[in-house]
């Protein structure tokens, strides 16, 4: 980052893996949110690596309760700030992984959005349960090999496409839902900042490649993140009050094969019989994104 980059409020010295996507995501989220922020962090890699008692990497007030309740905890933090007359000065953001956001914590998050609490939820989507060893979540993409959807003689890996989480959050009537990626720090910081400045429940879904879980070199986290956007497998857009208002264009989309080939979790698609057909299906997803979101 340049010297003029905004200050962040999570220190180095945490125990994240080399090239950790969560460290990037938390750093950028706090650059957007600023110092007057209370962070609610559900269980996951970020919580574990940043708070081994008696140490903490957090320079803002931070609370971790459980895996599935960040939406509710954030609701309570926001309500308490209101009741105590502090809400005008303090922002509330929650930063959670795809498992806690899209699976186990979806009920609590849905409740928080439906009730209209004034907070921002940032999902760091690394597309599987990395903290427990790369098990499939509803954020895992089609045909990715995980430890609970391994590729095998009769399987190409995860049989289902990713859950469309931003659409679910927009359907709650959220004033602002945006997708972003840690591969585009300025985009992410801008969107988090915008989200925290809008009153009401706002949602940022950030794509976050995990070197450990996806199988790529630890120096390539941001490169892989960019490739997901450039192959149109991860469209970046903003939705205001349910309508798409801004889309990041991809001038010359690259073939998905480039993205897939760079990661071990898709390796089987290049070795198994029928793999080519599978890659075509994934290309069709990218093509649909291009058309649906007007990426070109």
């Amino acid at each position, binding site marked *: 980052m340049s010297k003029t980059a905004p200050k962040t409020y999570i220190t180095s010295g945490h125990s994240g893996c080399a090239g950790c996507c969560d460290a990037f995501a938390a750093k950028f989220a706090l650059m957007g949110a600023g110092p007057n922020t209370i962070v609610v962090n559900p269980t996951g890699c970020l919580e574990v690596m940043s708070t081994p008692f008696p140490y903490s990497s957090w320079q803002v007030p931070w609370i971790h309760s459980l895996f599935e309740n960040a939406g509710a905890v954030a609701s*309570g*933090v926001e309500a308490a700030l209101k*009741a*105590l007359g502090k809400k005008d000065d303090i922002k509330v953001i929650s930063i959670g992984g795809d498992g806690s956001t899209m699976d186990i914590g979806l009920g609590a998050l849905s*409740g928080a959005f439906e009730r209209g609490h004034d907070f921002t939820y940032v999902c760091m989507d690394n597309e599987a349960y990395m903290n427990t060893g790369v098990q499939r979540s509803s954020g895992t993409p089609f045909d990715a090999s995980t430890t609970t959807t391994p590729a095998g003689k009769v399987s190409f890996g995860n049989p289902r496409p990713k859950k469309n989480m931003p659409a679910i959050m927009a359907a709650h009537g959220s004033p602002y839902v945006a997708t972003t990626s840690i591969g585009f720090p300025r985009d992410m910081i801008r969107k988090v900042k915008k989200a925290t400045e809008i009153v009401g429940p706002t949602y940022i879904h950030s794509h976050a490649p995990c070197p450990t879980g996806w199988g790529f070199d630890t120096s390539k986290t941001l490169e892989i993140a960019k490739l997901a956007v450039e192959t149109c497998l991860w469209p970046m857009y903003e939705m205001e009050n349910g309508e798409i208002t801004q889309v990041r264009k991809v001038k010359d989309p690259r073939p998905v094969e480039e993205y897939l080939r760079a990661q071990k979790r898709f390796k089987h698609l290049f070795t198994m019989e029928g793999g080519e057909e599978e890659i075509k299906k994934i290309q069709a997803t990218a093509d649909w994104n291009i058309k649906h979101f007007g990426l070109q």
Partner: protein
Amino acid sequence: MIDPAYRKKMVVVEGSYAVAHSAKVCRPNVISAYPITPQTHIVEDLSQFIADGEIPNCEYINVEAEFSAISALIGASAVGARTYSATTSQGLLLMHEALFNTSGMRLPVIMTVANRAVGAPINIWNDHQDAISQRDTGWIQLYAEDVQEACDTLPQLYKIAEDNEVMLPGMACMDGFILSHVYEPVVLLEQELTDDFLPSFQPENVLDPEDPKTFGAFAAPDTYEEFRYLQEQAMQKALPKIEAVAKEFEEVFGRYHGGLIDGYMLDDAEIIVMSMGSILGTIKNVVDEYRAKGEKIGVLKVRSFRPFPKEQICKAVKNAHAVVVLDKNISIGTNEGALFTETKSCLYNSKVRVPVIGYTVGHGGRDIPVESIAKVIEETKKVAKSGITVESQFLDLKEESL
């Protein structure tokens, strides 16, 4: 006889209304609850207070599940808000994971539990299986005998829980329907007296950007054990405070329901009937009849189940010839209720030698008539004379339908 001046202050209201009123005068900042029978009237009444602007500086969160009700209060309490919820039965069980979390983070959240049976089979009536099954979660548990006590317990519990040496969450347990839906004369807690009695919540650690702190950190084997030890220490420190706060309450409000325990006709009692909750009223009626006949029967009310008042129980039963414990719960696989098991346990290494038997009673709201209490007392008299034959059993089991 009730003093006529005091009687003048009494009103006849539903138990739930009285409890909601009590929660209101404790000046909560965040209330978060999910409706479940028989807790509903409490949260409906609180909602009406909110709708009428009667609770200043308070946010009411209509959550989508009990799990979120308690989770929201975890967040709110960590910010420094005084918090309240009410639940029961399945709702309390759904909170289970977060109950440990509340206590582990040392957040003094207070909750009324309108005790109810748990499924299967589904059943909405009263027993204590819900709260008793949460006994190891690190929450203070006080059981109320009547509506007035259910009301009076709330400010007491806030005062105990928010004490800097305690900082533990607490459940004010009241029997579902029997107390929550009964109309009886009570004194609604006066705002002014409650303000005198209960100071505002001033926690040492809060979530505040001015002084950022980390709540709910991860603890490895080299640090985890000490957290548990400190929680246990806090519970032990709560023991004398429960006694002291009950007396302070009496000084301000003129009412006393017992500290950790309470006795009725206990001092010279040869046979002691022990229990918790509204059943104590029925037991006292039966004991009155025995006393009228000159029989030395007494009642030991256990008000605090967590922390468990070992010393006080040992002292209370030391001169008895036999003790019988009535439990509205069972630990399946032991054939015993929890109060019975724990009473035996605290006596075992003491110098007190008294036979103790147990009955597990009133499951799923099964009525416990005076005749059954008398039957239990008759059995306990036999134990005093000739020793234990059956240590623990179900009361009023319908053998013919098995």
